[in-house]
Every structure is written in structure tokens, then in C-alpha cells.
């Protein structure tokens, strides 16, 4: 068994914390008392009664403002691997915190909001990943549910991002359409993509 350290990056509200929450929830790595606490706190009742982002947004200011300020670490294991996840903030003024988490990562998941496409923070985080020589990159095109799981939207973003890649030193890049909110292609393969 070895350790995989990965980080989630991307712009504000692209769903980084929700993605991690979904990953832990669907892989049954949330314990009962944590789940109860989550249910009590959640304001967003749409996602099956709980707001998954609350799992990693551990500071009071973060919960109040609904944003991630500093990087949070979460841990889970499968029989094959121990995973160390860094949930990074998306705001530009917290970039130093994002780099803190990214510096030890072997893999970076860069989220892109399917409705927004490639934005400034997508580029910034990609440049950082390139500077830090992070060996593996996953581009998760999120919120596919909000664009009716459209293949065209997905293809366009892949073409746009390929432009970004041209000037960067990133090699092992994979593209995955996901919906963190609904759990499409997070732990289980989705039939909708």
C-alpha cells in the first residue's frame, strides 16, 4: 500500500469542496457522527438534505461566508491506497494557501464549471501546477447536470484547455465530465455522460 496525495483546484464556486465531500460520502468514508453534524449545519437542503462542502470548510468564517479560506486536509483509505486530499481555496487572495497544499501533491484535480469554461483561476492554478511539476492532472468539468450533460459543451472546454496547455509543462492530463452535486463520475461511472 502506498500514499497518493492530491489537491483540488479551480475557481471560486467551481465545486472543489463539494467534490471532496461527494468523494468521501459515496466511498462511505464519512462517519455517522460527522454526518449527523453535517445534517444539522446544512442550509442547502437540495443535495439530499446535506451540503457536502461543509465537510472540509472547517473554520467559522468559511462556513459563514460559504467559501474556503485555507487548505483543509482529509484522509481516506481503500485497501490499495491511503489518500491525502488537500481542499484548496479558489480565491486569488488565498493563492498562497493553495500553493501550500499543491506543493506536496502528486496529482491535481482542476475543476472547471461547465457553464463558465476556462477562466482566469483555471489558468493560474494550471500555471502553478506546472511550476510545481505536479506529475498527474485531472481536468474535471463539473456541473454537467446544469448543461444537460452536453457532449458539445464538454468538447469545447477540452479544446479551450488544450490551448492553455501549450505553454505549460503538464503532461499526463485527463478530462472527466462530472457532477459533484449529483455524484456523476465521482465514485461510480455515470450513465449520463
Amino acid at each position: 500500500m502506498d500514499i497518493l496525495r492530491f489537491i483540488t483546484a479551480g475557481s471560486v464556486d467551481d465545486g472543489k469542496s463539494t467534490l471532496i465531500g461527494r468523494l468521501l460520502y459515496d466511498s462511505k468514508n464519512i462517519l455517522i457522527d460527522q454526518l449527523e453534524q453535517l445534517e444539522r449545519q446544512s442550509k442547502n437542503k437540495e443535495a439530499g438534505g446535506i451540503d457536502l462542502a461543509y465537510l472540509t470548510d472547517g473554520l467559522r468564517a468559511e462556513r459563514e461566508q460559504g467559501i474556503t479560506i485555507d487548505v483543509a486536509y482529509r484522509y481516506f483509505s481503500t485497501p490499495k491506497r491511503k489518500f491525502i486530499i488537500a481542499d484548496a481555496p479558489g480565491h486569488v487572495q488565498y493563492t498562497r494557501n493553495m500553493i501550500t497544499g499543491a506543493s506536496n501533491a502528486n496529482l491535481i484535480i482542476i475543476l472547471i464549471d461547465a457553464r463558465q469554461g476556462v477562466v482566469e483561476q483555471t489558468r493560474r492554478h494550471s500555471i502553478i501546477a506546472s511550476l510545481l511539476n505536479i506529475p498527474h492532472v485531472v481536468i474535471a468539468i463539473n456541473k454537467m447536470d446544469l448543461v444537460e450533460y452536453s457532449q458539445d459543451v464538454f468538447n469545447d472546454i477540452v479544446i479551450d484547455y488544450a490551448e492553455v496547455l501549450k505553454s505549460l509543462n503538464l503532461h499526463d492530463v485527463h478530462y472527466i465530465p462530472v457532477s459533484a452535486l449529483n455524484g456523476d463520475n465521482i465514485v461510480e461511472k455515470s450513465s449520463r455522460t
Partner: protein
Amino acid sequence: MSEYRLDYLEQLETESIHIFREIAAQFERPVLLFSGGKDSITLVHLARKAFAPGKIPFPLVHIDTGHNFPEALEFRDRLVDQIGANLIVRKVEQTIKARNLTEPKGKFASRNWLQTYTLLDTIEELKCDACIGGGRRDEEKARAKERIFSVRDEFGQWNPKLQRPELWSTYNGRIHKGENVRAFPISNWTELDVWNYIRKGNIALPSIYFAHEREVIEHEGQLVAVSPFIRIDDTDVILKKNVRYRTVGDMTCTAAVESNAVTLDEVVNEIILTRISERGETRIDDKVTEAAMEDRKKGGYF
């Protein structure tokens, strides 16, 4: 030629040993905060490995609430003897007298919060610039945010919104006069990692981590040991149960779990199967408010 690879416990161990050596190199007067629990026992074990064949180059400090499990104290003294470490004990009792603080009241009158005063006084008295703690990021949401070298200001306070960058394994221990650093070598370990490591190294633990018969009362679904430190009401029913402890804190704020696990293997198996978190199952003091730990940390707590 065979490939040199570390398994995951060895990777964690290597990281922790590196952190210990960084602390010893960067600070003048570090201390290791020792509670007698499994995490601080693991810390001591790692510190010995980091500096072997020499002795641990800093003292162990126990902030003693006076509400300890006798088994944990016994174990502490035996361990210190065995490894020839320097143990410094500071008592919360003394702080209460010296600062004229009010002793907490109630059923489970916990001195847990008062420890902060004793800790801050001790830091000042010993002029220590780094306190090494066994905090783990998987324990609690506020801890999950903390750096490995976490700077506290001259009042011992943590400012979670203004943490320093901490890249790769480069730890920045530069501080101003009066500030100190809390260093957490096992930040990236989970509860299960600690247990697996203890099993792998056959590290000795206080007996209360294994199943034993004990008189307890049930309070809001948690089993609390009968001791002189808690108030037993007429409505309480004293039960005899087979229990073990998952964490070892004060007798006033640590709950036991029912168990028949008497060997390390059995305990590890139970930890794997459990669906409740360590703090959720055994800590009475975290439930008070949503941000209980964050608030305590801001105030100077471990």
C-alpha cells in the same frame, strides 16, 4: 536490482522523523507535550528514532489537570525512566491557585479549558519557542486546517485566517520574540495509522486502551468512568461493563467504549469496523459548540 520503496507507514514515519529533526535544528528550547495518550506515546517513539542513539534532545512536558487515569500516570513515569527522558510536570491545580481562577462546576467539571492557562504559563516559564504536539488533522475540522509548524502570537493565540505558506517539506520556524510555534509531526496520520504503527512496532500502551472491567455511568449514550472527579447523582445507575478507551484525556471528559478487545490485533480490528469518529465517540468536551476546537485553539489551546 530491487527497487527501494517505503510502504505507507514508513512514508509517514519518515515525514515525522524529518519534522522532529527540523524542530531540533531550528529551535532553541523545544518541548514535547506529553499526555500519556497513544498519540504522544507515538511521538516519543518517533523522537527516539529521530535522535538515536542519542537521547531525545528536549524535555517532555505534562500539563497535569489532576484528573488523570492512574494507569496513564504510572505508564508515563515508567516510560520516562526507561528512556532516560527529562519530564517536567506543571499542574493546573497550581495555576488555579496562583491566578485565583474559579474551579469549574457541574457534573463533569472539566479542567480541560483551564489547561490553556497552565500551558501558556509553562511556555513563558521555560522560555520555550516550540511545543511539539500529537495533534492529527483527521481528528477535527479546525485541526484539519492547521500547518505542521503553526505560529502562535505572544498571547499564544492562533490566527487561522493568517497562516503562513508551508511548501514541500520546508518548515519555516522563524518567529518574533514572544511568539512560539506549535509543531505537529503526526499531522498526516489518521487514528488507524497510529494504531497500525503501534501494532507494527509493538509499542507499549497504558492498560486502559485494552478491554477491562470498570464501573461506569451512562450519560447521553456515553459511558463515563466512576471517579472522584465526577458527580454521581441519585438518578445515575452504576454499571459494571467491559470497556476500553479510544483516547486518553481527563477522567472527566473522556468516555469509554464497550469492548472485549484485549490484544492490539483485536483493538485494530474494532477501529477498522467502527463507524463513529474518535472524538465523536469519546470526547464529552467537543460537543458544546460547532467551533469548540477552533475557539480553544484561538485561545492558545494545544
